């Protein structure tokens, strides 16, 4: 299944390369069982990508080259994506990716999971960077930091959502940067504007998957608040980085109804 997907995706990529443009392929070739709505497909088609990132650029931004040599990791993300789609009741959802502690690799998982969703030509994904202190996601957007983003949007009523979403070098993957505010965003996350934003992101395109890169749920109120705002939460456990007890505590905080899955990240021995 996974290898079949990869072949189709590779074919699509070649097609993109032939057209010399990074614009979307209008005639979607997808294995997704759910047919894209007419409006969604049209929107997807209108999406533009500034420049496709080369494998080196991808690596620099902490993104996997899904067609590169790290097939095990790539396939793990693909399978995770597929499993999530299967598990989710809705056509699209807002997913919080959080960790059991700092340094769990949450941003890496969120970023690549978003990229994995975007691999499907019929789907798009938007990565919302809620990790204010963490600057790794800022490499996803042009310029080096200081880009207006989520916190600016939440503070400034006049800002529009379309001003917020930034294109990336990966097809169908968009990014909402964290913004210029680096701390004390907890109050902003509880504001109705945040809920409104998430509603818009989910509601505007039925094929768009919104993925939030959220701080750890343990020892961080922001993580918990954001987790509660989302449809589902994916818990990232660093390999040999947290005890079972800690993982259990994090799972309790998230709650069984919201927890969609747990991922052991950065396993040195490869996919089991």
């Amino acid at each position, binding site marked *: 299944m996974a290898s079949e997907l990869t072949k189709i995706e590779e074919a699509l990529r070649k097609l993109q390369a032939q057209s010399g443009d990074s614009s979307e392929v209008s005639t979607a070739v997808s294995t997704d069982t759910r047919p894209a709505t007419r409006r969604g497909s049209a929107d997807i088609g209108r999406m533009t990508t500034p420049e496709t990132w080369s494998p080196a650029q991808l690596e620099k931004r902490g993104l996997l080259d899904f067609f590169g040599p790290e097939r095990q990791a790539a396939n793990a993300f693909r399978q995770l994506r597929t499993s999530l789609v299967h598990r989710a009741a809705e056509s699209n959802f807002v997913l919080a990716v959080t960790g059991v502690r700092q340094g769990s690799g949450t941003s890496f998982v969120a970023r690549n999971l978003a990229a994995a969703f975007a691999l499907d030509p019929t789907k798009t994904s938007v990565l919302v960077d809620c990790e204010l202190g963490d600057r790794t996601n800022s490499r996803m957007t042009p310029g080096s930091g200081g880009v207006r983003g989520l916190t600016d949007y939440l503070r400034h009523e006049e800002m529009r959502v379309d001003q917020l979403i930034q294109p990336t070098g990966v097809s169908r993957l968009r990014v909402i940067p964290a913004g210029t505010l680096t701390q004390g965003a907890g109050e902003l996350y509880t504001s109705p504007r945040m809920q409104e934003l998430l509603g818009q992101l989910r509601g505007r395109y039925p094929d768009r998957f919104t993925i939030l890169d959220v701080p750890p749920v343990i020892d961080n109120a922001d993580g918990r608040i954001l987790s509660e705002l989302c449809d589902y939460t994916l818990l990232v456990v660093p390999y040999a980085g947290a005890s079972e007890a800690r993982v259990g505590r994090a799972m309790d905080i998230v709650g069984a109804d919201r927890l969609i899955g747990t991922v052991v990240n950065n*396993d040195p021995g490869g996919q089991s």
Partner: protein
Amino acid sequence: MITWEGGEEPIRLMLKEGMRHKWRLVLGFVLICSVGVALGLFWPKSYASSVTVSLQQDNVIDTLMEGRAVRTEVAGPPQSAGDMGLGRSLIERALEERGEIGEDTSPRERDRAISTLAGRTELTQPGENLVTLHYRGSDPKTAQQMANRLGELFVEETLQGRERESDAAFQFIDQQAQRYQERMKGLEAEIEQLRAEHPVAEPGAPARLNERESTLSQQISDLEQQIREAQIREDSLQNRLAQVSGSGPGEVGGGGPAQARLAQLRQELETLRLSYHESYPDIVRLKRQIAQLEQQQGEQGGASSAQASAQGDDQGAAPGPGSNMAQADAGTGDPGGAGAQSYGLAGGGLELRQGVQQSLYETQTNTETLESRLQTVRSQLASVHEDQAALEEVQKQISELERSHAINANIHEDLVSRRENARVSRELGSAERGLTMRVEEPANLPTTPELPRPLHFALAGGVLGAGVPIGLLFLVVMLDPRVRDVAHIPVETGSVLLTTIPHARTRTERRLAPLSVFACVMVVLATVAGLAALMWIMGGYGI
């Protein structure tokens, strides 16, 4: 704690962790190996050299001197090597000879040096009559020299100790013998003194006293016999006198004296009865006399009573003045005038009466003399009895002292003979020094150091270097509670999605990964090769 139900098997997990920490493992291996080699190189080398000393337990002299001389054993036949040790004085001598300690060495340093040397030596008993002295030193030559010197000193000290012991035994016995001799002298002096204080206790005294006692007893019995005879004679004279007085004019007053005589006799009888039985000869005699007198009185009857009263004074004068005899005392009346009257009246019977009277006086005097002699002899006998009692007492003391003297003399004699044995034993000990104990096998020059040698350290370093990191890895895998596998996520199977995302290597990592593994292998191989080379070199040099 990791449980393996549904999770990865431990070997695979260990391999995974091993790869993850490969550089740490390699570093641990190299470090431990290096420490092993370094320890081996800097570990003080120890060379052992040993001297064997033979102890001759018995030889021809023993057989010859059996029962007479006793050889002092070298602390007895050594039961075990542990029983024996090098004495402190021996070690001190050895150290002083080597100049390691001197007069100016502080006691603490001296103790330390002694205990160090004692720790380097060891005594074992390879055979029944063999003792081996081992010495460990950092230098082969020194080890040999020290072992030899210690062996010699050991023999010397032991023999000296033996001589000392033998000498001490002799001294002791000698002292004891002298003590007993002194005691005997004391007893002898005591006996002498006792004899001097009590002259009665001269030699032959008991026999003499016995003889004297029997002589005196004989004399007493003779005297008593004589007295009895004299009394009988006196009685008969009295009777004669009475008769003489009765037939002539001298006899007129016989009734009065007869009465007095009877009264006197009765009184005497009563007195004797207080002390003696009826069968006592004196009592029998008195009774007979009384009976005779009573009979005489009965015969004279009432006719002569007037005459008897008239002659009473004459009869009373008869005993004469100055007489202390009972009969004379019994007489009453006027002796002066009556005497003249009596002589005048008596006429021819007077002479007879005087003769009888004279004999009576003589007999009475004789009796008195005899009695006086009897008193003297009796007192002499009493004195002899006293002497005998005193002699018995002294004799008892003397015989006690003599008994004690005899016991002491016995012991003294025994000790003197033992002392001679001890003297021979002592001389035997000093004369045959070389025969009983000597260095059988002198120390050899050790060529290879003792274990552990650097080679062993290197080997141990290699084994530990491999084992310790792997063991630690195993412990980490077994005990570390951190999650390494989705199977250990505390959730019911199927309730949530469980995935593992493998490590995504960067381009650099991809390029370096094989190199890294290769480098690890190379480092390990190089270390092993280095170790092997080192061991080979060390083995070749016998290090």
